[in-house]
């Protein structure tokens, strides 16, 4: 691996970890549930995506042949993140409505 690709992989790793951390920071400090939902669906997903991209580049350059299987996880994460977000938002609204009726 030459200096340039090493720098690229390192930058992607740190950026990815930073975005993952940001997702959790948002999860902790935003004031209500629907706002908290934004942080993990976007920041954490992108963070893990960047980490997987770094891994794909690293193993493609050092291992034998191209390393594609990270792409499968990235694809899976990017397809499932909106689905879980929508389901959780629905569940939250459902519970809000129910507790409103109880009162």
């Amino acid at each position: 691996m030459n200096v340039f690709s090493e720098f690229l992989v390192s930058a992607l790793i740190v950026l990815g970890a930073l975005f993952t951390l940001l997702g959790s920071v948002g999860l902790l400090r935003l004031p209500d549930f629907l706002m908290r939902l934004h942080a993990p669906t976007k920041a954490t997903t992108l963070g893990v995506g960047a980490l997987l991209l770094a891994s794909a580049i690293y193993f493609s350059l050092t291992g034998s042949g191209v390393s594609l299987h990270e792409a499968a996880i990235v694809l899976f994460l990017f397809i499932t993140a909106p689905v879980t977000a929508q389901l959780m938002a629905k569940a939250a609204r459902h519970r809000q409505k129910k507790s409103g009726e109880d009162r």
Partner: protein
Amino acid sequence: MLIRAIEIAFILIGVAMMLSFWRLLRGPDIVDRVLALDTLSINAIALLVLYGLHTDSNTYFELALVLAILGFVGTVALCKYLLRGDLIE
């Protein structure tokens, strides 16, 4: 440089997991806990990928894939339970 980057990333993701875990403990509602669990499972995928890079081995990829699938299915099942109060209709 790469080794330094991986070390920094380990710390960042460790802190991220602690923050998610704090939200899991604090709640306040059960949907918050479900969200925190989902975030924790994605953080764990990040940790696995990072560990794979650290040890320079490809073996952890399958584990990350299984974790991704299980995390998704688990979250969906929990949400369905919250929405319907029943899993199998």
